[in-house]
């Protein structure tokens, strides 16, 4: 049994113009201890998927309209509301893109870490402080017994993200969901944070869902990858297959549009023409068809389902990439 299995998840938002089908039939699973990357461009539904797993979709305007989210076999969506706080944090923890806004600006680091330690471990004052200092040390914060007295605005972005990681992993969750954890950080700090996450993940034995738009970060950190486009998973496979035997034309185009080492201005970059379709009135058939160089009539009428094209490599495409496609 996988640790987490998402089946046919649908999350919608009602807005003035209509219903936005932000996540529209998403399925994937995460095994214990592995790192799954969810990758896609803005608006593809990757963050909404994560928020749905945590049941943090603001309702209204949003709601989960269908599907199942099986956590160790039990459906999160049918759990009573009062079971959620225990699940969040203890079993599934989350860190967000913007460490600037995820910490409470009016409390010190000590107070914020202390709250978690008290609730979860019943630790108070001295005990909580000692444990918090130890956690900060583990996430590589210099001078932790001083830093713990700081307010969030006194810390750099990298330090705040380290504290978020400390907080998330303090309760030794089985799954950490990290939503663009390094996007707001400088590249030298990004490398440090990714390394830190890996180290602590191994120590705690947690699985990680890493949500990102950056294919290089995926290559660097993930075991398996789900590529999302317009509210759907279009490719789901291990990281080597994604980069070396890409099947879906969208993933293929995305990988080709990254400037590669040694490319010069004489070679123009591959692009994906056109724009993402409306999620209020998504087109019939494949949502990528209008931008796809392989699209045929069938793609515009028949919706491709996620299917196995060999050895557990899943793709939602009628005409997957073959050798020789460019």
């Amino acid at each position, binding site marked *: 049994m996988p640790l987490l299995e998402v089946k046919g998840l649908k999350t919608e938002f009602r807005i003035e113009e209509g219903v936005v089908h932000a996540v529209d039939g998403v399925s994937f699973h995460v095994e214990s201890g592995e790192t799954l990357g969810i990758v896609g461009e803005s608006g593809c539904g990757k963050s909404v998927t994560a928020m749905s797993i945590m049941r943090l979709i603001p309702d209204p305007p949003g709601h989960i309209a269908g599907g199942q989210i099986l956590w160790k076999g039990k459906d999160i969506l049918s759990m009573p509301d009062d079971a959620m706080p225990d699940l969040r944090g203890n079993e599934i923890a989350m860190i967000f893109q913007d460490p600037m806004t995820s910490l409470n600006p009016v409390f010190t680091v000590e107070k914020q870490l202390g709250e978690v330690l008290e609730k979860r471990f019943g630790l108070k004052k001295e005990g909580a402080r000692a444990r918090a200092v130890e956690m900060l040390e583990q996430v590589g914060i210099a001078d932790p017994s001083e830093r713990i007295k700081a307010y969030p605005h006194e810390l750099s972005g990298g330090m705040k993200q380290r504290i978020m990681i400390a907080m998330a992993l303090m309760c030794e969750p089985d799954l950490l969901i990290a939503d663009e954890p390094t996007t707001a950080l400088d590249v030298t700090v990004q490398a440090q944070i990714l390394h830190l996450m890996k180290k602590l993940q191994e120590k705690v034995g947690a699985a990680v869902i890493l949500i990102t738009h950056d294919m*290089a970060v995926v*290559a660097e950190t993930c075991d398996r990858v789900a590529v999302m486009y317009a509210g759907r998973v279009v490719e789901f496979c291990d990281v*080597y297959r994604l980069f070396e035997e890409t099947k879906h034309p969208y993933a293929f185009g995305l990988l080709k549009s990254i400037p590669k*080492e040694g490319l010069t201005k004489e070679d123009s*970059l591959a692009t994906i023409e056109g724009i993402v379709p409306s999620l209020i009135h998504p087109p019939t058939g494949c949502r990528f068809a209008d931008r796809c160089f392989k699209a045929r009539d069938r793609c515009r009428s028949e919706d491709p389902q996620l299917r196995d094209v060999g050895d557990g490599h899943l793709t939602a495409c009628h005409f997957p990439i073959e050798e020789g496609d460019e």
Partner: protein
Amino acid sequence: MTSPILQVEDLKKYYPIRGGVIARKVADVKAVNGVSFDLYPGETLGLVGESGCGKSTLGRTLMRLEEPTGGRVLFEGKDLAHAKGKELFDLRAEIQMIFQDPYSSLNPRLPVRDIVIEPLEVHKMGTASERLDKVVALCRRVGLKEEVIGRYPHEFSGGQRQRVGIARALALEPKVIVADEPVSALDVSVQAQVINLMVELQKELGLTYIFISHDLSVVEYISDSIAIMYLGRIVETGKKETIFSNPTHPYTRALISSVPNPDPRKRRVQVAIEGETPSPVNPPSGCAFHPRCPFAVEACKKDVPALESFTQTDDPRHNVACIRKDEIEPHFKN
């Protein structure tokens, strides 16, 4: 050898920090602290560094969007940093800017036509109908259809908005364009479209670019030469090939090895560098990089190292600001 189109000499931009009851100046933030470089016609200079290193301030200061605290900016021999009145007005048409955020750099109350026509009106170029023709031609050139020029910015996607920004920058037929993180707010696939457009325009119009970015893979693709900034100063310059195959300054090395590789078989096992960029309000003494530098010695804490020619590579433009540049082992790219 061709002479530079733009020469920046010891350019400085300090911002005062005020404190106390009468808001006296108590210190300076030296955002740009003595920067010099040459820009050659038809080339792209990639200006790279992490947040707070002063790269955007440098871009804005050499355009005179910020008043320089010191130094000179020579455009074809004329000093833009000290120009006044008519001379400044005319010089401004020669250097234009593309901004990072295509959402906030376009006036939301103006249709695209008016946004692009504005520089032409300010500089009184041609008659009204000539101006309009020019706007249509510009929009077409950057890939916007004629029928959309009456629309407002919010009706466009990020990529299209950036095309509007490019059309506006091109309106006065400038020779130099300063592009400050022009693709960072865009998705990867759209990013490639905008970069391709910028490269095409450069070839077609002979433009010279200063391309400011924190994204090394984009910079490697688009640049001819590169300048690396750290805390208000340039620490290394050189041809693109030199910087990427022979990075010499310890910071450049760390920066380049911190970039993740889009190939799962080339994962890094080590972190290239620990720590974060210190605050520019209170920078370290001597070489600002010394607290993070694996090669630092006592002398590095004393004097600011000058940006000097590095002769071990056969790139005449290769300059490095490090007192140990000749002793530390060459960097081998993995």
